């Protein structure tokens, strides 16, 4: 069980690193936006990242 979790964490880090440039772009977008647009962009980025990481197995 622990091994599975460990493997998943490694996989998640790998996937996140693959998304580095996209995440940088989205963070910059958040910083250049203001008001509701900023909040929604930040929220959407976070939710999408979580979904992306949770569906690693499914997508592969």
């Amino acid at each position: 069980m622990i091994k599975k979790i460990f493997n998943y964490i490694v996989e998640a880090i790998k996937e996140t690193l693959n998304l580095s440039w996209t995440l940088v772009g989205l963070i910059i977008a958040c910083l250049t936006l203001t008001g509701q647009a900023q909040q929604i962009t930040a929220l959407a980025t976070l939710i999408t990242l979580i979904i992306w990481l949770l569906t690693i197995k499914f997508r592969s």
Partner: protein
Amino acid sequence: MLRLCLALFLLIPIPALAYHVPTQAPSNLTLTVDYENGTVKADWNASDQMEDYPAERYAIGFGLSDEVSLPYGIATGNVGDSNALNTEYTFTASYLNAVFLEAHGLFHVKIRSDNDTNASYSEWTPTVSITIQNKPASVTLSSYDMNREDGIKFEWSASTSGFVSASTYKMYYKLSNASEWTLEGQQSNTDYVLAWDNLTDDTYDFMLSACGSENDCNDSNTLTVDVVTYVAPTTTTSTTTTTTLPPKVEEVYVDPEPLPPPPEEIIVDIVVEGVDKTYTQADVNDGTIERDQERIDNEAAYGCFMTDAQIDRGDCIIIKEEVIDEEIIIEDKENVEIVIPEDVVEVFDTPEEKEVEIEILEFEEQPIEFEVIEFDLENVAPKDVVEIPIQDEIIEDIIQDELDETLSIDDEITEDEIQVENNDDKIIQEIVESEEEIELIEVEEAIKEIVKVEEIIELKNQEELNTLSQEEVVIYEEEVKAAIVEYVENLDQEDQIEVIKEVTDIGITNLDKATKETKQVVQAVVNEVTKVENVETLTEEQTEVVADILGFEETEDVAIIAEAASKEENIAQAVDEYVERASNNANVENYNLSDVVVEIAVENFIADPISIIQIDFNEITISNISSDMTSSQKEKAQEVVVPVILARIATIGSFIMRKSF
């Protein structure tokens, strides 16, 4: 290996999952009033310094009012100063008087830890209040004189070292073995004679209360005296002889030595602007006469009724005056040649005339420099370039274009010609810079006419500031800022807009060489006109002016930014720092408020990354998702987001292409 990784994972603190306070607030704030020295000491405890960004200095908010209000702020020092991390601060009576025009009432204080390096600031501590009574410092009772016919005389030094000076003194006395005090005298003098009728030969205690105007009193020490009542000298007469008994030495009444006559008042009469002015010794001592004389001289020389210090500081525009002086004098001379006979020509030999002539010579040097430029340009440029009225209207681009055109005519450009071009560039640059400086001086003068800073607070020049300690400089700057903000708040909206118009004429980024006070005035005006309630009252034309200074193309953006500033901390901070940042970015093209918003957002994100996902779902309305963004901000976001998305698509595309092959 797995266990090791798990242990490391658990050991390493993850800030995102923990209660995250980058900078902790101080604690245990206490206030102590010292009536003897007229001070209030604020004392607090520092944090444990274990946070991410520990305090580098402390900000102190304070106020003096019946309601809890803390409109003023001060710091323990600048970052790195020896006293920046002091955990106590002493407010003096003179400082409170300077800020509040009084030094008694309900005094409020709160403290905040500041880490300026990372722009991280703690919460404020709860406000602590203490009452400063209208009570003077106590006096010391030690001197008395019993060798008097009328009673025992006490003398003391006036009470002036406290928050207020004593307005009355009350004399109390009692037998040493008694418990009740008897009030006898109540007056404002610093001496009192207690009549012998009140006393007998016994041991008495005496005490003096120094009282303020609201009858808050501070008691002196108790002075114990073995009173021996005064006995008048006695005379015995007989029929045969007359013997006069020698009086006891201690009972002889001796008239006090007459006080020395007051120093003779020196009166000086001087004629100023045709008016006979009288000066006293005090005026002589404090240099009033010298300053008045400087004003007279400077008015004659430059047309400015100012002291030398004001002239040195640049309060008087001498350059403009010089040009006008030249024209006037030429006309005068022409008239004089015709009207005044030769025998009164000595009139021209007054010192003022000589001084003006010197100025004319200085002025005449400038056209000589221009002649040299014309000569140099003849090699490369046609005459029509030379005839551009450089001194009246200098447009760098036009001149540059002309030079580029003419230079391109020549097929072979020699090194000398390149040198000439470089020199021309330098000269043009210098001319443009001097023109900008003159414009800036004019704008500053115009702003001074509207916001008369010198009338509300005494400004110190650089030499005076050099004599102050760092702490005093911080106090002085805070005072100036507070005074300016208060003045601008009470200014008519039309005057506020007038200040902005003056600045937009030269561009806000050109304020980089303006004085600190000018920048503070402009910032205070920007803050005022971008308040929601004030934006509503602006006319269309005034809104355009405000939009112009903020760098917006759409006038609707002014109302949007005002609304956003009232809701979002980043934008409020951006508005608050706009003038300073814009003037620091003079070299950046089209720098506007949106740039400042992005700068602040980045700084705050670096200081606290979690803050970006603090989302208030109640504020979100999907239907008008970008309605609270200014057009300028949308444009800025487009400039950044679109290229990033395109770059990402291109990356994915190339990856797919590579896989398919």
